[in-house]
């Protein structure tokens, strides 16, 4: 009897580990920023390089911080979703134009539409490092007090918007 039970147990243990392994997403690294204040920045705006935007300008608003670049292929697939979200006016969408050529970036927004209330430039990737960005696109949700409440890695889909972003934004809008 034991002769059959031991291999069976081993098989089950192995199967459980493999199943867990299949469902893990090694690309999703848990962000240490959740429930921490948004890292400080003060950076020139993409459409008006003489003006700067800092995270304190956004205090009192629920905002999304979306990291994008014209060289980023998945940003292209994410873009219509953001355009759609911008039309709903649920929250302010701030773009971080990451390691990009400003001319390419402006051209990109002209052709594909601009969902961002404002985009700021991070040509040498320093703001990216401060925010722990490792893959573009990434999207953070920041509450009215300037605390990061959620981070999404990779392109945001319609489903993510409906199931995660909109309910969370609605909840944060009620908070004082």
């Amino acid at each position, binding site marked *: 009897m034991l002769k059959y039970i031991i291999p069976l147990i081993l098989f089950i243990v192995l199967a459980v580990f493999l199943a867990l392994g299949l469902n893990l997403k090694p690309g999703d690294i848990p962000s*240490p920023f959740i429930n921490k204040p948004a890292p400080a920045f003060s950076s020139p705006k993409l459409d008006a390089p003489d003006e700067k935007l800092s995270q304190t300008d956004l205090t009192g608003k629920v905002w999304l911080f979306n990291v994008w670049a014209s060289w980023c292929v998945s940003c292209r697939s994410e873009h219509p979703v953001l355009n759609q979200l911008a039309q709903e006016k649920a929250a302010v969408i701030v773009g971080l134009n990451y390691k990009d050529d400003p001319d390419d970036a402006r051209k990109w927004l002209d052709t594909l539409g601009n969902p961002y209330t404002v985009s700021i430039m991070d040509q040498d990737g320093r703001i990216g490092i*401060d925010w722990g960005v490792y893959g573009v696109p990434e999207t953070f949700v920041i509450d009215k007090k300037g605390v990061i409440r959620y981070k999404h890695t990779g392109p945001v889909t319609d489903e993510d918007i409906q199931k995660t972003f909109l309910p969370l934004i609605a909840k944060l809008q009620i908070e004082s």
Partner: protein
Amino acid sequence: MKRLFIIFLLMLSGNGFAVDYRQFSNPEQQEIYESLTSELRCLVCQNQTIADSNAELAADLRRQVYEMIEQGKTRQEILGFMTERYGDFVLYKPPFKAKTGILWIAPAIFLLTGLIAVFLFVRQKKKLSGIESSPEKQEKIRSLLENGDQS
């Protein structure tokens, strides 16, 4: 033969180009730079250190480490800066915590399980061979070998 040797030498040289070389005035700082870049993970290509990787993020992180060393920051301060932003995952050697405990303990558990299994297996085998070598069996084996199986 000569050509093969040259190809071999070329293969060896590949690693040298991966890291952009940085010059420090102080050999201690050089050492910190080299050890830090080889124990921080590149988060884009997750099985490479930032010293090995040619990803842009790795280059940025090397620059960050370089600048922090130049500013006189210590090893611990730089590691703290990185984990604050990227979490423990950025470290090739994760700290021993409740969450990472299984990573550290599992190999010992597997080794122990293996040793116990081998021990039990060997003991059982010994018992079995003890039965095999009883005088009656030996006799039977010998007669089978000499006369063949007549049953």
